[in-house]
């Protein structure tokens, strides 16, 4: 079995919907992992988009048909980096020990040699890049975190995995925050978009036609793994450099860039 790690970077907000109306203030929430509450892109969405409607013999072999299982397996694309509005540097890209540990554990289980360093952080502290620090603090939305050290080593490792080089925008914006803080921003720090439908004659909002949608903001990075009998199938991941995944596609959500070639 061949394995490969790859990543998706959001260029526009992504709305992998749940297909259900929630009971909360948000009418259309994004899909989340049940246990952690971290947003994710389900593997089935990813696979459907990569298949791109093809039903020829070659595509059936890779993606499967009613008669036969496909030879390419994908895992859910989990959130690796979440952009959060920052007092300094416009936005920070945050991650947490749990996210890094899970990636490392999965990579090892799949026999991949890449390593991500596993620095620990707890409470209201952070390891941070240079652009997002203000007076030895990282101020994200309503949370102030004390800078405990630099995130440079971790940023270098992640940047290497994603881009194969040091990407300045990531290097200076990465923040490692505690699991609790990361979880908090996954619940409350996503983009909420108000939508209305207007009556065309009166230009007023149609009765009942105001709703709130949640989206994972642009610049988020997701990580996923691919498994296949034949490494040639991995070419499917890069058949197109850009993908559009998730709901609300016709108003521009879900443009993603495929990254990584471990």
């Amino acid at each position, binding site marked *: 079995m061949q394995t490969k790690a790859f990543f998706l970077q959001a*260029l*526009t*907000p992504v709305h992998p919907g749940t297909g259900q109306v929630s009971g909360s203030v948000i009418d259309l929430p994004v899909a989340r992992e049940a246990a952690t509450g971290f947003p994710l892109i389900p593997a089935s969405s990813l696979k459907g988009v990569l298949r791109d409607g093809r039903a020829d013999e070659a595509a059936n072999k890779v993606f499967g048909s009613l008669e036969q299982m496909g030879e390419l397996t994908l895992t859910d694309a989990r959130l690796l980096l979440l*952009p959060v*509005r*920052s*007092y*300094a540097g*416009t*936005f920070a890209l945050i991650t947490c020990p749990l996210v890094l540990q899970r990636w490392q554990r999965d990579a090892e289980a799949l026999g991949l040699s890449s390593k991500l360093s596993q620095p620990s952080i707890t409470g209201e502290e952070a390891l941070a890049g240079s652009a997002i620090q203000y007076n030895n603090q990282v*101020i994200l*939305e*309503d949370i*102030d975190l004390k800078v405990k050290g630099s995130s440079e080593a971790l940023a270098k490792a992640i940047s290497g995995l994603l881009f194969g080089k040091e990407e300045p*925008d990531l290097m200076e*914006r990465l923040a490692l925050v505690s699991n609790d803080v990361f979880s908090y921003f996954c619940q409350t720090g996503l*983009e909420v*978009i*108000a*939508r*209305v*439908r*207007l009556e*065309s004659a009166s*230009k007023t909002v149609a009765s009942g036609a*105001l709703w709130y949608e949640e*989206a994972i*903001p*642009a*610049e988020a990075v997701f990580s996923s793994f691919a498994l296949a009998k034949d490494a040639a199938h991995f070419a499917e991941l890069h058949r197109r*450099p*850009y993908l*559009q995944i998730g709901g*609300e*596609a*016709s*108003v*521009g*959500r879900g*443009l993603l*860039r495929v990254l990584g070639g471990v």
Partner: protein
Amino acid sequence: MRAARLLLEPPNHAGLALYRYLREHDTSKQAARALLDAIAASSITKVKVYENAFERWKAALSGAVFLEATARTPLAIGLGNASPIENGLSIHHTYGTPYLPGSALKGLMARAARHYGLDERQQEILLGTTQKAAHLVYWDGWLDPSSRQPFQKDVITVHHPDYYSGGQCWPTDFDDPNPVGFLSVKPGTKFCLALSSSSENATDWLYTAAEILRWGLEHLGLGGKTNAGYGYFEVRLPPKPKSQAELGEELYQGYKARIEKIKPNNERGELSFFLQELRDKPAPLRKPTLEAIRKHLQGWRVWNPGRNPQHAEIEQLLGEHT
């Protein structure tokens, strides 16, 4: 908000500043005014990361039609978004720039399409229905990084609050005016809009949609307060590339004189010249020229694809098209 935060200047991210950095709700609205002044004075586009993201977004949409829309009047879009100063604005969550939501552009397109009198099939392709998704994607309009300082402090003054709130008393000259500050986008701010389609051969549709959207942005206005002159744009469209059929017509015009000179005695040589020229060209490109040759030969009453292999090839090349 924590008390320590009150001492900080508002951040560079306009959205974060607007939503989290209002110092207090005083009755004279001093704090709101100071906050709006700070945002209007901030320059967001010095941030390199936004320029990079903008270029990356454009590169990702190869094949899209890009429109350049410059605000002629102030723009107030997303006024209804939740905000501590009561009036919001559509500000990009990650970058803090103003933007034009794709959903608003699509909604405007739907209104403009009615003025254009599009039939049901055209509307279905451009806008979709509840049964069928649109073939086009209306991307959010991104702020052009050349537009520095896109925000301005704006004010709407309610002159007769009692009359508007209850309607119990008549408006008079003795009412206290109530000025309400809000944030709007400055005239002259430039946005880059993109339309794309995942369907092949959609170029004509994209240009049709761009033309309709341009009309909407120039005449109907986008966002709120369009009746008070907000939200009108000046739009530049890219020149439409020539279609294959148009190029084919041009090719034919170039050969026209030569085709008319084909006579029985030079026919074989001329036909082999034309076949060599046209054989590998795409079908719509070669069609007008081949049709003209066929018509010319039919006029001479020498057209005989059953016997003449050159005639047969012309017939076959024309047939592939249909």
